[in-house]
């Protein structure tokens, strides 16, 4: 995202949402007319466990300023245990990104059920605000992909 | 700065012909009309869709065709699948011409010619055959032996029927691997058909096709009394630059893109068996 002199920096957020809970949660927040920032781009995945660490990195490469991964609450996974694996995987990945000096607040995992439309909207608002404070992603950006 | 061969030209696809279930022939012209560049029969060009891939293809149209170039391309990998899916009017990038050519103006001049092709192997030879037809006075007898898996897999079948077979100055022999309804021509593999036809050993042979066909055809020709110096073929290996610099298409010290793709069999014999 570019910083425009007149406009406040608007971060681009990529949200990976699991099909069964979080995506439905996002839907619910929509039908309930709850506001969340328009710069959150949702990518629907069959299960949070589908998200390969590479997806997270690619999102940053292609211009994301923050990446959030939403899945069913632990214990509620449609495939029984997918989100447990996600949790370990993402904990390690985020820790590694932090180790490499990439701001840790650009990444997050949040459990949002199909009934938590309000939580979805609140999470997105809060996360967007947090990323906005950090400014544009510079440490894990691919300069070639920056929009001219 | 001067033009660099690695910077391609734009070509526009003006016609797409479905030749066989997996071969299409693409007609390419420059955006301003006319050919993108001149070539000699047997030379190749690098075609690319940026972001998809770039690969070497032999130019199937004859240099005597002054309006356009044609490429017969078999669906095989990533790029060719993309090319097969595109529509007329699509622009592609093109650079070349690359490689040597069949020696149509030197060694082949005045000779009796025998073309042997299998499947998509007709692509590079079609350029020579049409070149020879357009300069018919310069060559002796011309015979074409072409075979494919089935009638439907014969590339440029319509042109063969309408033009080549109608041309009294050349002899065309077609064959398919297995009997098929609606086919009353010869059935059998190309190498065997060549032996059956027993062509005169005075002819110079240009052969192209799958490696296994080339191998058996060459053996058959030797049985008939042909020598390796009489037989030409054209090769293909992975290429990136097209000008002998990127270093991958070599057989021994010869680069297929620059020193080839046309080789005479006695020249190939001196090179290591790594193709």
């Amino acid at each position, binding site marked *: 995202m570019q910083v425009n002199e007149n406009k406040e920096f608007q971060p681009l957020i990529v949200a990976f949402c699991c099909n069964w809970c979080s995506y439905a949660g996002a839907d619910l927040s929509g039908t309930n007319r709850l506001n969340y920032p328009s710069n959150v781009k949702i990518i629907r995945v069959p299960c949070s466990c589908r998200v390969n660490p590479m997806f997270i990195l690619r999102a940053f490469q*292609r*211009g994301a300023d923050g990446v959030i991964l939403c899945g069913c609450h632990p214990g509620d996974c449609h495939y029984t245990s997918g989100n447990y694996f996600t949790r370990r995987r993402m904990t390690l990945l985020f820790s590694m990104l932090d180790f490499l000096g990439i701001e840790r607040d650009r990444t997050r995992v949040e459990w949002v059920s199909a009934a938590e439309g309000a939580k979805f909207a609140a999470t997105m608002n809060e996360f967007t605000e947090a990323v906005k404070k950090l400014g544009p992603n510079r440490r894990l950006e*691919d300069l*070639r*992909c920056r*929009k*001219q | *700065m*001067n*033009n*660099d*061969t*690695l*910077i*391609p*030209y*734009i070509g526009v696809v003006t016609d797409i012909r479905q030749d066989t279930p997996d071969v299409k022939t693409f007609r390419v012209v420059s955006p301003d009309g006319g050919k993108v560049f001149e070539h000699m029969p047997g030379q190749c060009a690098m075609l690319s869709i*940026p*972001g*998809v*891939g*770039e690969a070497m293809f032999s130019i199937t149209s004859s240099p005597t065709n002054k309006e356009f170039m044609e490429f017969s391309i078999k669906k*095989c*990998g*990533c790029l*060719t699948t993309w090319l097969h899916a595109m*529509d007329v*009017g*699509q*622009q*592609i*990038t093109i650079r070349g011409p690359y490689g040597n050519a069949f020696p149509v103006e030197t060694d082949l001049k005045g000779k009796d010619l025998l073309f042997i092709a299998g499947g998509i192997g007709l692509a590079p030879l079609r350029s020579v055959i049409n070149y020879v037809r357009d300069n018919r006075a310069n060559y002796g007898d011309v015979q074409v032996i072409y075979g494919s898996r089935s009638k439907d897999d014969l590339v440029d079948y319509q042109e063969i029927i309408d033009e080549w077979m109608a041309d009294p100055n050349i002899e065309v022999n077609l064959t398919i691997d297995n009997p098929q309804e609606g086919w009353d021509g010869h059935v059998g593999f190309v190498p065997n058909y060549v032996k059956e036809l027993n062509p005169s050993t005075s002819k110079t042979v240009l052969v192209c096709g799958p490696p296994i066909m080339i191998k058996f055809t060459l053996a058959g020709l030797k049985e008939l009394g042909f020598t390796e110096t009489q037989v030409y073929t054209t090769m*293909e*290996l*992975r290429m*990136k*630059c097209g*000008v*002998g*610099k*990127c*270093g*991958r*298409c*070599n057989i*021994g*010290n010869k680069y297929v893109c620059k020193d080839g793709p046309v080789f005479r069999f006695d020249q190939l014999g001196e*090179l*290591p068996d*790594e*193709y």
Partner: protein
Amino acid sequence: MLKISLDKLDKLFEAISASQTLYIPVDREDGAAEYKKYESGMKLSSALNTLRSAKDFFFPQTENLVDFKMEGKNIEVIDVREESEDFVIFGVRACDARSFTILDKVFLAEPVDSYYKNRRDHGTVVTMACARPAETCFCGTFGIDAAAPEGDAACYSDGESLFIEAHNEKGQKFIDSISSLLEEGDTAKLEAVRAKTREILKKLPLAHLTTDNFGGDKLNEYFNSDKWGELSESCLGCGTCTFVCPTCQCYDIKDFNTGHGIKRYRCWDSCMYSDFTKMAHGNPRLTQLERFRQRFMHKLVYFPANNNGEFGCVGCGRCLSKCPISMNIVKVMKALEVK
């Protein structure tokens, strides 16, 4: 010969870098040397050779060849080439200097590679004679005299002063640009230093390695040698030897989709990689044996066959010290020679 006192080297570097970009080898924290753009205060490394070769200046690991903009069915080709700035590479060793001659034979042959030529035209190579060759050095095998390097201009040190001499017009122009710092000097001591270096070169463990048994006419002799299996057995198929080699020039062309256009890159490639010759319908070099053989046959047989007997190796010794499993051209030469 013109000279400058060694303690005035920084003045010399300041003077050069005032008019054009200067690159000198400097020591890194881990003890290795690498070329860096000169900035005030940098010290010239005394290391024998830089970890990466100097070929990067003319043939960088990755370079943007051309850009494309795709719109509907249309493609726009954008030429991204820019005239290179003038630059000087200082302190190139004799082996690396010779490698440029070898790269020239590839890239300046028709059709000329304009990317390479552009940088070659604008770069001045100032070499530095070696005083302390290492055990891995075998430049002598390829007729290179480490005490008298090639290049546009050459430098020699006698321990007190740095002597500079031009080898061609470009070198002369370089010396003219710094002539105010130079003075005429007596080379008697320098000759003694050189003679000593040559003595050491003769004593190096690889001094007796010769190319007598190699060359363009040896194709059939070596191609089917039964040694290749044994030699390539431990090869990891990585590209370390290729990438530290000053003469390896194979490249790949890769497209990158930026989301708003396509950038086409040229990047170093290695014949040791499994996908080097892979095509949609097969691969002529299926196992590591063939890939390994290709690299060494190219340097010892194919290259001389195409270039009047010049070998594709300069004996810099980088592959000897960098190969993860210590398999290298010297071992290959020695193994093949044994009849």
